[in-house]
């Protein structure tokens, strides 16, 4: 889970409703899919909202949350490495820092690309996903930082 308040545990958290966060994530995945010239496939995205936890597993009592959003793009495995290159360039051009980058040649042929925003923003984790016995899809993961809905009171930690 996320580390709540790494910078200063009582700093004001970014405010966004869960619905709005999902809208952003949906938009992000569509844009990233467009970069590799494929649409987001029709599978329902996997969306989870988790609590923000402290270093020793402490839980906040207010409504702060982290969103994890995954959607998938169907793309043949031989195109995954090329897709990773395109996505990398787009993300770097838009000010993201690449934190993890791995590509594997056949027979494992798959990739992982992770990026974090320059300032506040959503984190992006892209990797090959297995369906029908092979890496036939790419998962685009959008993870939020610890946020709190508008109107909710942020409790001191």
């Amino acid at each position, binding site marked *: 889970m996320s580390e709540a308040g790494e910078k200063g545990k009582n700093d004001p958290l970014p405010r966004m409703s869960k619905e709005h966060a999902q809208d952003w994530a949906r938009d992000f995945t569509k844009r990233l899919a467009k970069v590799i010239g494929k649409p987001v496939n029709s599978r329902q995205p996997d969306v989870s909202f988790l609590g923000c936890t402290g270093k020793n597993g402490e839980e906040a009592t207010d409504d702060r949350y982290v969103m*994890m959003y995954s959607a998938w793009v169907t793309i043949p495995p031989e195109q995954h490495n090329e897709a990773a290159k395109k996505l990398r360039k787009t993300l770097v051009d838009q000010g993201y820092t690449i934190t993890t980058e791995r590509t594997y040649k056949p027979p494992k042929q798959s990739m992982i690309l*992770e990026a974090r925003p320059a300032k506040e923003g959503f984190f992006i984790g892209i990797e090959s996903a297995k369906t029908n016995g092979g890496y036939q899809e790419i998962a685009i993961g959008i993870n939020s930082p610890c946020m709190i809905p508008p109107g909710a009171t942020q409790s001191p930690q």
Partner: protein
Amino acid sequence: MSTLYQLLLKLDVSDLEAAKSAWESLARKLETAHKDHRRHVTGPLANWHGDSAKAGKPVLDTLQGQLEAAHVDALLIATVLDTAAVNMKQAQTDLKNAIKSAEQDDYVIDDTTGQVSLPQWLIDAHHDPDQATVLPDYTKAMTGHQDKINQAIKDAKKASDDGEKAIGDVRAQLLDEEDALGQTAVEARDVAKHLGIGPYGIPDGKDVKENAEWWKHLSHDEQQTYIAMYPKQIGALDGLPAVARDEANRLLLDQYLNPAPPDHTINADQFNKQQDGLRALKKKLDAADGAPKGRELYLLKLRQEGDGRAIVAMGNPDTAKNTAVLVPGVNSDLRGAGGEIDRINALRSSARKIHPNESTAVISWLDYDPPNENVFDSDFDLGVVSTGRAKEGGEALRHFTEGTRAAQGGHHSNLTVIGHSYGSTTVGAGAAGGHGLGADNIIAVGSPGMTVKHAGDLNIDPKHVFIGAAKDDPIINNFAGASLGSDTRNDTFGARHFKVDTSGHSGYWDYINGQPSESLTNQGRIITGEPITTTPARNPDRYSGNIPNPFPNVPQGIK
């Protein structure tokens, strides 16, 4: 006016049976309404905030509780009518048999009173000298016939009176009361008492296959009645389908949250602590009511006693391709239910991202009494903790995994059991005992020991035992290899070691820079049978003599 004898002879229970069917039908409608309300009304509104939510949510919650209470009441009334009909019909059969038997022996029975008289030929033979010889036997037999007739009338009267009393236990005004759901537990108990029925037929629970078979052979209405009357017993039966256990335990949770009458065996602090834990669990369950398939929650066991116990599954373990069971460690209680459910969600999400077409269910298993110590307190000494609770918990865990297999029937889910901290000691004890946990993989993270010397002692191929150990995990660094088993980090333990990039004792499910950590991803990969990133095991010889023992009073080695 008809006598009881005449009434019983003419008795037609078809009206009672029709009424019972009507109440069962109503119960089914209320069951559907209650479930629909949960999934389609309160579930999707879990994230509703603001002033209107403050005003509207309690109204919807009350309505949902009323639907649930009404469902239970309809089942109780159907049970009362059914029991009365069955018992009265049995009394009528007994009466008819008694009459038939008496008439076969030529006795005469009064049509109005059911009074048995001697055979006419015997009375007519009063001049026959043999009459005096046989008369005592015939008189004695006559008394026997009369007793049977009287008993049948008495049984019918009792069935009628019991039914009347039991119907009175189901209170019409119940739905107006704040603790309506708590009152349903009182009603169920009183109805059972007045009908003289107990939890007959419910297996003792030991044989999980027998539990599964028993449940399978009940009709839907019978299953619903057992759930309404005995939620605690049904909810705890390993081997039953997750859907049934969930229904029973959610009713139990609502009854625990609306205690009627209040429990005076515990003090206010204990009561408040229990209620805090139950509310934390309820909040998390309610928030997932509108969740899509695969992220729905199942409450597989609940106990409020002591620190409370709960088993919660995300996704249906009976049908999932992959099932994981996470056993928490020291200091776990119901108040931490939210954090535990977040952990199983993180594991499920990590597994699903790379295997979107495979269903993965993850279970948080808190059905034992972990040591209640602050492991981060500098004075804390895990050496004082023995393997006692782990062995007790391990047995329960083994029973649970056997039950999960029984509930799955022919479907074999890829089963991974994960133990954290003292939970790994419990997993070790469970795996080492009996025929093991029947798991395909075992994972230990932050482990102070698994009660055994070698991974091969866990009734599983050691290649399927995985260890995750953060470099700065104080529990591992201070206590591994002390009193709870050998040090699982060592190559001599014989397990596989996956890469851990998180920090401390509680970080194994963390996100780092907004991404699932390698610690978390590796667990997700093990659950779905994917390759992991590994790290070499420690060679203890390299360390021998170099690391001073900071706790000289803790006996080293295995006990």
